[in-house]
């Protein structure tokens, strides 16, 4: 995204839009992660409480998903920077 041809008011507006979108994204990432780890790790419904194995699995699943998402984000940024440079001045 290139906002350089935006005036001050337009940049301020887009910053607000971006902030709202980032909050929504974070919530969606959170609930998506939770659903995914629940579906993968929890398979025993003979009791109401999580087993020790399920707890470990959910914690690892969460850690791994966040690291995965961070790594993909890094590659995504590099790619966008490259694209910007090729389009550049």
């Amino acid at each position, binding site marked *: 995204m290139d906002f350089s041809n935006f005036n001050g008011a337009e940049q301020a507006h887009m910053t607000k839009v971006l902030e709202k979108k*980032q909050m*929504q994204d*974070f919530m969606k990432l959170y609930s998506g992660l939770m659903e995914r780890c629940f*579906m993968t790790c929890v398979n025993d*419904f003979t009791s*109401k409480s*999580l087993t020790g194995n399920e707890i470990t699995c959910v914690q690892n699943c969460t850690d791994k998903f966040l690291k995965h998402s961070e790594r993909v984000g890094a590659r*995504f*940024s590099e790619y966008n920077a490259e694209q910007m440079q090729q389009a550049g001045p």
Partner: protein
Amino acid sequence: IRLDRDGANIDPAKMEIATAELDMITDVFNRLVTSCHAKCIAPGNSTRYAEGELLKGEAVCIDRCTAKFFAVNKLVSERMQTMGGTAQVTGSFGR
């Protein structure tokens, strides 16, 4: 600060946060319905939908599944705070 018809104050930031919270609750509820449907209703049925009632075993499963879903919700939320997940995740978007 906006005034409504009766002259009372509406704080837009407060409204935005409340709306986001509502969206979050709805999203979690919808995922809960879908997940426990997949765990308790869909798979055990070899004869697919032979009846429209909830079977006894399905009802018990739903209650336990819901309890476990809330426990996972709490676990993941704590884990993300420990990892400083918020900063990492939104920061990783590269903007």
